[in-house]
């Protein structure tokens, strides 16, 4: 294909991709994130406020419900809507903390491993593979029993898994890029290893990193929910979506709203994130640059 085609087609395909932006997921995710951030201002009730007299009240659209508690109350009379909103804080905070710590470590390891190659790369990869082969939730269970249940311990146990994931992907890309002509030419020009990694490898890996990060956030939220559902996540009474779903387990057929709304929150968040992640991957894929 001639260049002319490439140039114009490319401009159009990027524009087209931007036009096909998944508006709804972005809007939903944005709304949820905003709600979580502004929780103290928009939640109608304090999330920990117990009111046994009004326990298990149904949502406003049922008989017996009121607009005071739009989504009803749980066993201890706490407002479900407020807890869902605050729960978003926990989930998102957890996800981003883990991503930050684990991601940074993983990216650095992946870059160094992929760039260096050879023996050190093999050794590091064995470690990474070992971590990846462990079943996340089971290990988390054990770890939390040992270290005690807290926000920090959950972050600490999940970080290595994320790090391994990033290390794996980034290393693969780094290895491919390392063999590119432009890296060879940078060496010919006398660039130092640091410079090559920072200016040539990192920017070309950035796209992949963003996509993995987006998708991992979704996975992390699910893991957190699973952990708290199993009782080893963030400790009660902090509102966490998984915990709330677990709370409502006995009432699934009678008072479904205890589990449904936090469950919906999980589903909407994770689906939106995945949708956006897929779209990002399409937009950032350099192969789309050539027609």
């Amino acid at each position, binding site marked *: 294909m001639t*260049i002319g085609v490439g140039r114009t*087609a490319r401009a159009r395909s990027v524009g087209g991709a931007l036009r096909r932006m998944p508006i709804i997921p972005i809007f939903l995710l944005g709304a949820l994130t905003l709600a979580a951030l502004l929780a103290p201002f928009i939640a109608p009730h304090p999330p920990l406020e117990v009111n046994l007299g009004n326990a298990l009240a149904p949502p406003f659209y049922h008989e017996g419900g009121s607009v005071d508690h739009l989504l009803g109350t749980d066993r201890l009379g706490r407002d479900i809507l407020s807890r869902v909103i605050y729960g978003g804080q926990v989930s998102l905070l957890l996800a981003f903390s883990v991503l930050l710590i684990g991601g940074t470590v993983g990216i650095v390891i992946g870059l160094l491993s992929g760039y260096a190659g050879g023996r050190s790369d093999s050794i590091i990869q064995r470690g990474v593979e070992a971590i990846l082969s462990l079943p996340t939730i089971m290990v988390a269970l054990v770890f939390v029993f040992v270290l005690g249940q807290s926000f920090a311990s959950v972050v600490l146990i999940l970080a290595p898994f994320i790090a391994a994931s990033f290390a794996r992907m980034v290393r693969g890309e780094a290895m491919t890029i390392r063999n590119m002509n432009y890296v060879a030419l940078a060496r010919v020009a006398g660039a130092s290893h640091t410079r090559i990694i920072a200016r040539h490898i990192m920017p070309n890996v950035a796209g992949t990193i963003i996509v993995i990060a987006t998708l991992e956030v979704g996975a992390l939220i699910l893991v957190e929910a699973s952990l708290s559902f199993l009782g080893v996540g963030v400790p009660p009474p902090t509102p966490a979506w998984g915990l709330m779903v677990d709370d409502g387990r006995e009432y699934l057929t009678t008072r479904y709203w205890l589990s449904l709304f936090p469950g919906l929150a999980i589903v909407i968040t994770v689906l939106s994130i995945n949708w956006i992640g897929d779209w990002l991957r399409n937009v950032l894929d350099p192969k789309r640059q050539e027609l």
Partner: protein
Amino acid sequence: MTQAVPDVGRDDDVLLQVTDLRTQIGIKNGVVKAVDGVSFDVRRGEIVGLVGESGSGKTMTCLSIIRLLPVEAARIVSGEIWFDGTELLSAPEKVMRDVRGRQIAMVMQDALAALNPVLTVGDQLAEPLRHHFGWSRVKARDRVLEVLEAVRIPRPAERLDEYPHQFSGGMRQRIVAAMGLGTTPSLMLADEPTTALDVTIQAQFLTLIKELQEQTGMSVLWVTHDLGVVAQTCDRVNVMYAGRIVETGSVRRILKKPLHPYTNALLESVPAIGVKRERLYQIAGHPPDLANLPSGCAFYERCPLRMDICREQFPPATPDGEGGTVHCWAVGGS
């Protein structure tokens, strides 16, 4: 606008006749006119060259003939392709499946991509024979050995059970040619078959194809950008630029007395051994933007002989006096 079909008797002598072929690829907000009104023919027993650079439309023309367009967005918009009495563009897929691989063989540039790495060479060569003719294993194997010998693979009986990666690049290319030859096709479409080969291996391959062509009488449509290859193999040549044919003629006439400014420029700019030049002739400008082709001649921007009319109207065919044509306002055609 239709290009004039080259002046040949419409008779049994013509194996393939392409008339006003147009193939387009849909892109955002527009189309790429990859093949924009191409007409030419291939007679029985002759080797016809289709010469052009990347983006000229030569590969898309080939793929359009056998209706194996590479992307969903590509469509053949109009035209007629008569092959041995059958019109191909309107033929049902069942007929095309019979034509492809049996009557028309294809040899592409990258032999490794054409060969399945997990099947032995013998199996792959036998497949079209068993599929098209329903032959038994034994009968197919005999023919496969014959064909491997014809393409000069040494010790074919032993190598039949080897895998593609165990052969060198040159041999793989010959195996791909052998795959096409098994069914004694009447036409071979060769799309840059030697571009990726070393020059000594390319020479072997060129010699081989010429010999095979003489022995079997098949026709070959040879797509390439290499004028040397054209000189050594083809009888007649069509020169393509920006999806259109700009000049046709016998190989001798085109290479020794090129009429179209593009053909001439190409010949002048290619360095040749033994021809001493201080400075190579350079064609100004860059290749055309296929998504935004002008209504006139696409070579206008780069042409040393351009005139106003060239920008507006694509020139009609002017005969060259020897059975070929040229599409240029500056060369006759007024």
